[in-house]
């Protein structure tokens, strides 16, 4: 069969079936907007703002850990409130919201060649409910008793008891309500992301021609839609336990010499529900990062992603498998020990597709034409960090090795590497990569390089040594590291060092923020396709893309997303919407 050019016989690009909504005033254009791109910016800005709060909280915690006894205002109570809010904000309100609400909203319609999300109104509601959830969360800082200090895992019974900050005050109630709101809002957005990928693809954009970014976000959203209900169920039940005195999770308890009313409830049930959500959540954050980083590497190495099919299968496989590994967070929870055999096996099996992804990233570099742009630097840093964090995951997944290490600083170091720093590095890389599309201007290069080196090396220096504190036995979630016989003097010094690095890394983020704001006005003009990339978002008629994205006609897609350096082609990239056939040995479909 021969290639078909868009001459005769092919209908013109169809008009989107959703009648495009047209904003009328400033308010509907920039505030109550139904344009996915505006919603994306709103999501990102809100997530960044609340993320800054979490960053400041991490400084406060590091102040306490690095210089114990120096800062009186950080009481144990305050410390636990800080870690809880820090952890919850980072995982849910920052990363989940940013990857799916931010990047998902911006990139999905553009990359699949759609004018907008399929249900724009619901999409707008999604953002406003998210904002409400954030506000409810923030309000707990000002509520009597302060925010909850139960740890981001919110384990009952302590989460709703008086020994925990906020347990018998407003803190936990506001936290649970905020989570419930978040889940409702997210479900609205998530429906959009999924259905837009299913139904919004332009002509010729088959699933196997999608950029991996879309595959990552799509799979992560499907997972989130199925995993968040578990958190919803757990939150609702805990809220009833706390407010109406039911005993879903609350067993008979004698608290400080007093018998509580509850009876028979099962704390382990909560843990199962929580981690049934919690583990997929790790991949909900990781899969979009995987997808984005694949595209960054491919674009900036001017080479197609190595083993595209394997990458797609791995994303889908990881997504499916991650629903049967949740109890690896519960090896020492006192659940039936024989579960350990099953969950250790499934957990280590997941390592295989994950490893394949890593191989394919580095093999993409092999014989590439590597432009060491800032997005590429962040992508390289991601690989280092992710490999490091992924490998320590093999310690913690292997049930018996987890026994001494669980609930120590080793765990803290591990998950910061793998789901904290690694995805954040991708977020940065992605911002440097797509900022020119969003604003039409490049971010400043010098500031960018400074930001990159400090963040990457600083974060590595924070979290790499921390593993060894955990190996020594230093437990996590310790507001005071005094009177610990296992800790040598030098271990305390190491802690101070880690804290200082944390402040430096935090400072670099301020530089980044400055760059973000400054470059809107003063950045170098970018043009429509500064990275000479193939995917559709770079082929829009205007930059930044106008409402409706693609002008009069939707693009038609003739090729996959990775036609870089195709032999025989003049340029080293062929946009997806460029007709024609290139390359020596290519059989047409």
């Amino acid at each position, binding site marked *: 069969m021969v290639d078909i050019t868009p001459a005769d016989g092919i209908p013109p690009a169809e008009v989107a079936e959703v009648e495009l909504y047209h904003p009328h005033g400033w308010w509907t254009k920039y505030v109550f907007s139904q344009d996915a791109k505006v919603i994306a910016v709103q999501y990102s800005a809100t997530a960044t703002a609340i993320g800054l709060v979490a960053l400041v909280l991490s400084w406060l915690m590091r102040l306490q850990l690095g210089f114990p006894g120096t800062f009186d205002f950080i009481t144990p109570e305050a410390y636990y409130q800080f870690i809880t809010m820090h952890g919850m904000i980072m995982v849910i309100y920052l990363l989940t919201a940013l990857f799916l609400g931010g990047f998902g909203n911006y990139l999905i319609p553009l990359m699949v060649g759609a004018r907008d999300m399929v249900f724009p109104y619901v999409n707008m509601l999604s953002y406003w409910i998210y904002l409400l959830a954030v506000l409810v969360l923030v309000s707990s800082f000002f509520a009597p008793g302060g925010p909850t200090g139960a740890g981001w895992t919110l384990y009952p019974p302590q989460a709703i008891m008086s020994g925990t900050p906020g347990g018998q005050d407003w803190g936990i109630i506001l936290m649970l309500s905020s989570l419930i709101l978040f889940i409702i809002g997210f479900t609205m957005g998530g429906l959009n992301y999924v259905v837009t990928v299913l139904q919004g693809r332009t002509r010729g954009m088959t699933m196997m021609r999608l950029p991996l970014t879309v595959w990552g976000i799509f799979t992560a959203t499907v997972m989130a839609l199925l995993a968040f209900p578990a958190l919803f169920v757990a939150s609702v039940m805990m809220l009833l336990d706390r407010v109406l005195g039911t005993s879903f999770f609350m067993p008979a308890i004698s608290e400080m010499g007093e018998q509580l009313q509850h009876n028979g409830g099962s704390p382990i049930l909560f843990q199962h529900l929580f981690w049934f959500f919690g583990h997929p959540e790790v991949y909900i954050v990781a899969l979009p990062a995987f997808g984005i980083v694949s595209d960054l590497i491919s674009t900036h190495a001017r080479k197609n992603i190595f083993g595209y099919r394997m990458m797609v299968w791995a994303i889908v496989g990881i997504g499916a498998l991650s629903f049967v590994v949740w109890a690896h967070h519960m090896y020492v929870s006192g659940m039936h020990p024989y579960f350990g055999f099953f969950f250790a096996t499934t957990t280590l099996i997941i390592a295989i597709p994950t490893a394949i992804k890593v191989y394919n990233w580095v093999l993409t570099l092999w014989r590439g034409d590597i432009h060491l742009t800032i997005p590429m630097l962040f992508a390289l840093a991601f690989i280092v960090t992710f490999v490091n964090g992924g490998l320590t995951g093999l310690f913690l997944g292997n049930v018996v090795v987890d026994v001494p290490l669980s609930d120590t600083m080793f765990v803290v170091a591990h998950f910061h590497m793998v789901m904290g720093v690694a995805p954040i590095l991708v977020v940065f890389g992605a911002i440097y990569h797509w900022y020119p599309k969003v604003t039409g201007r490049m971010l400043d290069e010098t500031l960018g390089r400074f930001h990159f080196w400090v963040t990457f090396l600083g974060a590595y220096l924070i979290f790499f040594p921390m593993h*060894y504190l955990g190996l020594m036995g230093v437990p996590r979630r310790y507001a005071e590291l005094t009177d610990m016989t296992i800790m040598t003097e030098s271990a305390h010094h190491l802690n101070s060092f880690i804290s200082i690095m944390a402040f430096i890394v935090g400072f670099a983020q301020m530089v980044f923020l400055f760059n973000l704001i400054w470059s809107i006005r003063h950045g170098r003009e970018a043009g429509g396709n500064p990275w000479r990339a193939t995917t559709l978002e770079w082929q829009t008629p205007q930059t930044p893309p106008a409402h409706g994205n693609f002008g009069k006609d939707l693009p038609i897609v003739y090729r996959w997303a990775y036609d870089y350096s195709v032999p025989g082609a003049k340029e080293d990239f062929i946009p997806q919407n460029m007709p024609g056939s290139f390359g020596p040995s290519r059989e047409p479909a």
Partner: protein
Amino acid sequence: MAVALVLVLIVVGSVLFHLLSPWWWTPIASNWAYIDNTIIITFWITGVVFAAVVLFMAYCVFRFRHREGNRAAYEPENKRLESWLTIVTAVGVTALLVPGLFVWSRFVNVPSDATEVEVVGQQWQWSFRLPGRDGKLGTSDTRDVTADNPLGVIPKDPNGQDDVVVEAADLHLPVGKPVKMLLRSIDVLHDFYVPEFRAKMDMIPGSVTYFWFTPTRTGTFQVLCAELCGQGHPMMHGVVMVDTQQDYMAWLGQQQTFAQLSAPKQTGSADETTGQTAALGPEIAARLETVGSR
């Protein structure tokens, strides 16, 4: 160039840090050297992979960095290479998993000659109970917890009468004898963790969890709580002393049984005991309050 160099330095630095830094695990004091060995295997395998991947990246960045006129190769996939990599990874993962599961099966199967020791966690202190002469622990229930019966031993159970109760004080264990730690909590989740023993397990109100180990050297070890249990969590320390058999018997002889503790107090000595075991929990709570009011 600089990038490739930094990548190499990261590998070299991490390996040197691993080998030379003074921060390492505490000298082991139990039979779970198996676990340490598994960790060593894991360090080897993961270390090799880490070094290989990052050094390969460094080489690529050095060798294939952009220069004028360069063009990337065109290679969508390579089935053979991918299959090989998958197989090698699978072998590596199996090499980690198999010894791990092997040790885990030891960890969960308690030897039949292990003596039972009960640990009871409560905000924020540790108490212990040892079976008396009959070798059996009496049953317990959180609903039976009172000031005089802090562990909630069911008074009607005859097996419980001779149980030795150690409230908010140090636990002693004889060296070289396997023990099965039965873990219980009367309020929230806690986790009994002695770093030198390598083992730990959560304690869940409403159920009894366990782990076992054999202390292999005498000494004094700090008990840490490893599950966030409220404000007093970081101060919830305890002490386990591993004694020679002789010292252990001597200590055991001084302890009170449940029956003695719950007998109506008339003698001066009984008062003394209550005074001496003044619970740690309230003390920590008081300390927190002073900290809070600062």
